[in-house]
């Protein structure tokens, strides 16, 4: 017993010590011998105001240049001397720059560096890029490794002495001819603000467009134009990464671009040409894209893309630096064929079907300030790739106070009769050194910030970086190039986990086997890496592949796919070793097997309908809302309207056509002979339902009016309409059947004979009051007199909140249907339909109310207990604001300035404090007197609601909260519901429609979640990472995500409606999206 206690004590103290020792240790220059600083001196003649690439920093390349088995390092200095350090072992390095002859051109502006065996002699050469205003000092350099410690500059001889504005080069074998070709990333030096000029994207610019060089017998020949590489003066290349994105065996290229120019994803066409597939693959991109890395973050064998932007993490810097939203320039950008772009880091998860889901916010990696280099690698050897990010900019030159300062400065100088000095301005820009970011991959698509506990917390202005095992101890160390401070060398002190390193030796000229892939299989898990060293930012990673293996002691097998596609399988590989693998002959890797039977099959739509909206911008009416409400269509409902045995469908109209019933014809065609049902230019169909209103046995149609931007409450535009069936299948508008229902814009219609009198009554949910968000709209319970005349019944839920959806179910088994409803900034609620009236029993059924952004409710028995369970669609986790009971989102609203408009203030927690989402510009626009209250962005940058308004004002204001953003299932346990959270892929986006059924025919109920919402505040960006999330039920209430290639779903757009429709005996899923075509999927 005593021994046991002692052991416990020892273990505990071991754990404590372990927890206190950070994973990384910053090594002093005195120890490493690396005394490198990228020194930038600002002068009146040379500074960021006359050369904007001044603070973009330098790179690092790592590789074994002398073949001694130790990784050597090369640093670029922008204006100083570059340095080559030979690794002496034991984390000691020797500066051999001079002997090696690789200082770089004196006075030239050095940028990116790449190590590669360019001439195929088995030795790593060094390729150094140049930019800068002075043409005479540009011209890239190729240092050929002579194997004797000396390098010889031979760029001209190889055809690689490009004298444009270069960022970095990547060497790779794009044409599979066995030698290394070169992609040269370049950048424009003149910012173009006129977006009409996007037309000029096809024009080639000799100095700034990117270039592709084909290696033809040792000479590099420029083939950009022919290969389909974009070369316009609008390119601002900052990052490059090569990877086989689509896993077809051929290397593809990812290029990031600063400013309005979108990133490029060049998919290799296998014939010497590339096609930019960025727009097809990604729903949106970072606006100011910086560095990029590509690696498999979830071990599904697919390369994912991480690229960086400039969004700060903390509220203060966000308020100081974030650009003002500009819907006009955003719209212009997209209308000019430039993709949607938002300012934040992005993690694009490869879905394996040519699409990507951007999940950076859910993953927790979207805001790392002005960031340069992302590096995905397994730093803690637990089997998942972690993320390291460098950041920093010498001057905060997007500071919004500074923008105004400049004008005042000029005037003051003029008054004082002094000349304007650029250096005064440069020095007036605040300088902020930032901490780097390091995130641990949690293995579930999320990351945890480990800045503190992993010891990466030294502030600096950092640029390029590499990871490599510098001391050959089985873990990855980090090296960072800093501006005006010594380079960081972080020793990884981790221990305890297994690892494997692969050093590949290729055949022929591609001696380092660039482009190879390796899979490491261990106990049912697989890891995947590609050997493409030029990644991150201005930098080049090691050619040694590194895998962390956690607690595994054995490896089942290692598979290497060589650049020529030869597949080599290794077994009996021991852990904890650096293993050299030499290419042997063998069978070539065949094409990836096509997935077997998919659950759904996309089919040709029998109804041609592309929804087109009116270009509403709801934020022009209420600036401070989060989402737009105008786009609610197309809405759909199905019924056999003419009782011919074939299902018909009502589809609401759009800008170009009114709503109509589409009658199914013999042969599966559809026709619309009927009358126009709601012209969308005079009102908006917000929700529809077929039901028998007058008891004649024929389906009638109720159209609830929705919309926001164009309609006023209490006008005919918001009056619902009833269309009765003439008994022959034709619908006609029935006048005088409905009371005045025009108080609000509605979100749902739910028919039900709630009073058990034999006719069908209706619940109509009020969604929003146009112009008065978020005041509670009116919801209506409409009682049918049996002949289709409806009257409004008074209920406790007629002003309950912004209702989005409702379901009728008998909760208490008294034979009367009760009402479940949900909404925005509302919990899911239960109202019991008792003989004496409606009783709110939410707390009884749902426990602690979960107020959220609920959009949809579905009922199905998912656990096979014979009781209906509830599936509820919410906002999801992939947003800028994470909410919880402890840190809720709060929405205060009142007419604070007494001018007749509701001022809604949305607040959410950032680093433990609840701050308003509203920027200073927006605040000043909404409430003019605030211009006096906060005189500068700095003044406002720390303001909370308590600083903006008085306590009395806040006490009088309305307040709504949200504590739950996840989509969930509530299992019906009889008398109460038990909450089960849906898996993370279900939380990628807003869920707006839910279909239930046994889609995979295994006898268990599955869920299909559809959604997305793109018309949000630009600061939030589009939510569209859901391509149709199929969740396979286990019959017990548990669900697992079915990948897109297996589900067969690739639903694009904001889903507004979904219906199952049987056409010719075959079941189809019909999906209506805003601004898109109807999408038909056959249930396979």
């Amino acid at each position: 017993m005593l021994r046991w206690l002692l052991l416990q004590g020892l273990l505990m103290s071991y754990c404590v010590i372990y927890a206190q020792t950070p994973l990384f240790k910053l090594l002093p220059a005195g120890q490493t011998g690396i005394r490198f600083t990228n020194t930038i001196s600002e002068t009146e003649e040379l500074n960021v105001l006359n050369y904007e690439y001044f603070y973009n920093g330098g790179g690092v390349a790592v590789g074994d240049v002398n073949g001694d088995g130790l990784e050597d390092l090369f640093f670029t200095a922008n204006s100083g001397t570059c340095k080559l350090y030979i690794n002496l072992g034991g984390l000691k390095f020797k500066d051999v720059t001079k002997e090696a002859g690789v200082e770089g051109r004196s006075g030239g502006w050095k940028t990116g560096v790449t190590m590669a065996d360019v001439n195929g002699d088995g030795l790593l050469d060094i390729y150094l890029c140049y930019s800068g205003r002075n043409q005479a000092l540009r011209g890239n350099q190729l240092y050929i490794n002579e194997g004797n410690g000396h390098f010889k500059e031979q760029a001209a001889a190889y055809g690689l002495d490009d004298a444009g504005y270069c960022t970095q080069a990547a060497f790779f074998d794009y044409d599979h001819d066995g030698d290394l070709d070169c992609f040269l990333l370049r950048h424009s030096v003149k910012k173009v603000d006129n977006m009409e000029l996007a037309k000029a994207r096809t024009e080639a610019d000799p100095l700034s467009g990117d270039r592709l060089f084909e290696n033809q017998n040792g000479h590099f020949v420029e083939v950009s134009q022919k290969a389909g590489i974009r070369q316009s003066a609008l390119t601002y290349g900052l990052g490059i990464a090569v990877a086989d994105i689509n896993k077809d065996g051929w290397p593809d290229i990812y290029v990031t671009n600063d400013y309005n120019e979108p990133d490029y994803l060049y998919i290799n066409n296998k014939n010497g040409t590339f096609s930019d597939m960025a727009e097809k693959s990604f729903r949106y991109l970072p606006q100011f894209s910086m560095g990029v890395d590509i690696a498999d973050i979830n071990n599904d064998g697919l390369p994912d893309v991480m690229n960086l932007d400039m969004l700060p993490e903390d509220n203060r810097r966000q308020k100081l630096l974030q650009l003002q939203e500009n819907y006009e320039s955003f719209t212009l950008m997209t209308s000019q064929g430039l993709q949607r772009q938002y300012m934040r880091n992005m993690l694009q998860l490869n879905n394996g079907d040519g699409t990507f889901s951007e999940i950076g916010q859910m993953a927790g990696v979207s805001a790392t300030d002005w960031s340069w280099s992302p590096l995905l690698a397994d730093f803690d050897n637990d089997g998942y790739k972690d993320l390291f990010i460098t950041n920093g900019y010498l001057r905060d030159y997007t500071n919004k106070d500074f923008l105004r300062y400049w004008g005042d400065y000029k005037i003051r100088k003029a008054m004082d009769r002094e000349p304007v000095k650029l250096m005064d301005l440069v020095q007036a820009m605040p300088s902020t050194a930032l901490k780097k970011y390091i995130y641990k991959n949690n293995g579930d698509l999320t990351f945890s910030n480990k800045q503190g506990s992993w010891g990466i917390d030294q502030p600096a202005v950092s640029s390029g970086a590499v990871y490599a095992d510098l001391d050959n101890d089985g873990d990855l160390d980090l090296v960072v190039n800093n501006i005006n401070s010594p380079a960081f060398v972080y020793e990884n002190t981790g221990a305890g986990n297994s690892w494997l390193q692969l050093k590949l030796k290729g055949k022929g000229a591609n001696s380092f086997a660039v482009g190879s892939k390796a899979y490491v299989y261990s106990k049912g898990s697989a890891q995947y890496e590609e050997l493409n060293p030029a990644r991150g930012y201005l930098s080049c990673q090691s050619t040694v592949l590194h895998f962390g293996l956690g607690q595994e002691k054995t490896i089942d097998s290692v598979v290497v796919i060589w650049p020529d596609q030869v597949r080599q399988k290794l077994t009996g590989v021991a852990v904890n070793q650096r293993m050299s693998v030499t290419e042997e002959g063998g069978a070539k890797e065949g094409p990836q097997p096509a997935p077997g039977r998919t659950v759904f099959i996309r089919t040709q739509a029998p109804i041609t309908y592309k929804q087109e909206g009116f270009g509403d911008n709801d934020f022009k009416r209420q600036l401070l809302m989060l989402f737009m409400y105008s786009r609610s269509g197309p809405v759909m409902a199905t019924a056999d309207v003419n009782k011919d045995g074939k299902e018909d469908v009502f589809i609401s109209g759009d800008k170009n056509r009114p709503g109509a019933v589409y009658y199914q014809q013999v042969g599966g065609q559809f026709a619309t002979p009927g009358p126009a049902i709601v012209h969308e230019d005079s009102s908006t169909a917000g929700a529809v339902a077929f039901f028998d209103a007058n008891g004649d046995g024929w389906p009638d149609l109720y159209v609830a009016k929705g919309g926001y931007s164009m309609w006023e409450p209490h006008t005919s535009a918001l009056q619902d309409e009833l269309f009765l069936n003439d008994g022959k299948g034709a619908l006609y508008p029935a006048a005088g059947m409905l009371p005045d229902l025009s108080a609000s814009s509605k979100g749902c219609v739910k028919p039900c004979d709630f009073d058990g009198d034999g006719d069908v009554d209706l619940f109509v949910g009020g969604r929003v009051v146009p112009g008065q968000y978020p005041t509670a709209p009116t919801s209506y319970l409409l009682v049918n007199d049996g002949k289709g005349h409806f009257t409004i019944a008074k209920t406790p839920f007629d002003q309950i909140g912004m209702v989005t959806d409702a379901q009728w179910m008998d909760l208490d088994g008294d034979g009367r249907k009760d009402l479940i409803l949900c909404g925005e900034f509302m919990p899911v609620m239960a109202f019991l339909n008792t003989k004496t009236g409606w009783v709110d029993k939410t707390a009884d059924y749902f426990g602690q109310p979960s107020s959220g952004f609920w959009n949809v409710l579905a009922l199905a028995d998912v656990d096979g207990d014979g009781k209906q369970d509830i599936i509820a669609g919410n906002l999801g986790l992939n947003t800028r604001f994470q909410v919880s009971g402890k840190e809720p989102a709060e929405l205060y609203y009142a007419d604070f300035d007494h001018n007749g408009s509701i001022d809604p203030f949305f607040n959410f927690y950032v680093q433990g404090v609840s701050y308003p989402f509203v920027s200073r510009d927006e605040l000043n626009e909404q409430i003019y007197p605030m211009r006096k209250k906060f005189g500068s962005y700095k003044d406002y940058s720390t303001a909370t609601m308590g600083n903006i308004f008085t306590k009395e004002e806040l006490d009088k204001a309305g307040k709504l909260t949200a504590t739950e953003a996840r989509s969930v299932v509530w299992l019906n346990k009889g008398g109460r519901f038990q909450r089960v959270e849906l898996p993370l892929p279900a939380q990628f986006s807003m869920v707006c429609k839910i279909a239930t059924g046994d889609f995979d025919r295994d006898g268990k109920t599955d869920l299909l979640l559809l959604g997305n919402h793109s018309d949000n505040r630009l600061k939030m960006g589009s939510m569209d990472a859901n391509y149709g999330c199929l969740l396979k039920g286990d019959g017990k209430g548990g669900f697992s995500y079915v990948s897109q290639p297996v589900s067969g779903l690739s639903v694009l757009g904001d889903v507004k409606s979904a219906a199952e429709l049987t056409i010719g005996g075959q079941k189809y899923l019909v999906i209506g999206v805003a601004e898109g075509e109807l999408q038909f999927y056959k249930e396979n």
Partner: protein
Amino acid sequence: MRWLFVFLVFITLTVRGQVQEKVLTDYLRPAVFSITMVMVHDVVNPPAASRYYTYIMLGAYDIVARHNPTLVKPGVLVRKFPETTADGANYDYRVAAIWSILETGRLMLPSGYRLEEEQKKFMQLLKKQKIPQAVIDKSLAAGKEATTRVINFSKGDNYGLLSARRRYNPLRKDSTWYPTPPAYIEAVEPNWRIIRPVLIDSCDQFPPQPLARFSTDTTSAFYALAKEVYIVSKDTGAKSMYERTIAGFWDCNPFAVTTSGHMMIGLKKISPGGHWMDITGIAAGVTRLDFDHTVLAQTLVAATLMDAFICCWDEKYKSNRIRPESYINRYIDPKWTPYLQTPPFPEYTSGHSVISTAAAEVLTYLFGPKLDYRDNSEELFDITPRTFHSFREAAEEAAISRLYGGIHYRDGVVNGQIMGRAIGEYIVKKLKSVGVNKLR
């Protein structure tokens, strides 16, 4: 001897009085300019600037008119202006009037606190003039009282309702205005028509001539108008120098944005209204106008500017016409940029043409058709002073400068002038009818 003493005292007092009168009169132009500088700091847009000028002057004029029975009462000129007959004694109404200018600016402008420094400077000036503290105190109180009244009056002009109105959502038709490079700034004050005018009856009282019909046909009148802007921009040599001098002189863009990479720099200037307020100050100086009539002139010009902006802004969002920059980029030369930065609101009619012409009409009535003056109002903004011989000459130049600058078509300029003249003539007629006489 005693008699002599009395005489000497009298002379001293009279001289001191005259000196004081001159010092205080001379101070009016810098007082208004200090308001202008705060507006420059705050980047107040042109219509909003004209509104501030009106209220800072109305309080001052209210005080002056109470003390000078020959002046028309503000209530006669301005509907529902809350006059008061109550008045304290033993204060200097000129000090009170100036204080009202500074104090109204301090309370109304977003960065009004910046005027506190100017107020201190003014206090020192008063002390240097040996004005007794008791008089200063009472004058300041009177100035504050007028300020309170004018601010209350301003609250009824619907300005506070603007933020409750729908903002402008571009129509995205070929013919309509869309925000322009480089910053694509949102439409400025799309609802300005709801602001209560000062001297005129309504925003649509002076509808302009119909504008040239939009067309992309290269033989159309509209294409020709755009082509003219384009061709003028290609002028070379002395002609170009002349045109650019004039364009720059009348640029008056409160916030031109230039970008350099991620950085945006705001280049600031005074607004068109600020320019004419300063011209009024210059004219008063040149003609050695007394204190009371200087305040009168400044008030009337401010009110004229405010009304002219209201009319012009009503038309701008009614006609909603595309700017030359957008049209030329789309149909003539995608790489073209105008010499001046295109301001963020629709083209028709040219605001500078309307307000300059209207202001010049009122100034011409007050000061006469011929007056030589040197306009140095934007010297601080690196703009070389220019000499003019009449206000109409200046207004003519201000109007055509917008064509030279590449931001307006000729019909926007010419029809803007016609509109401005109608506004000016209407106001002059009103002045005559209520007994505001020519100043010389």
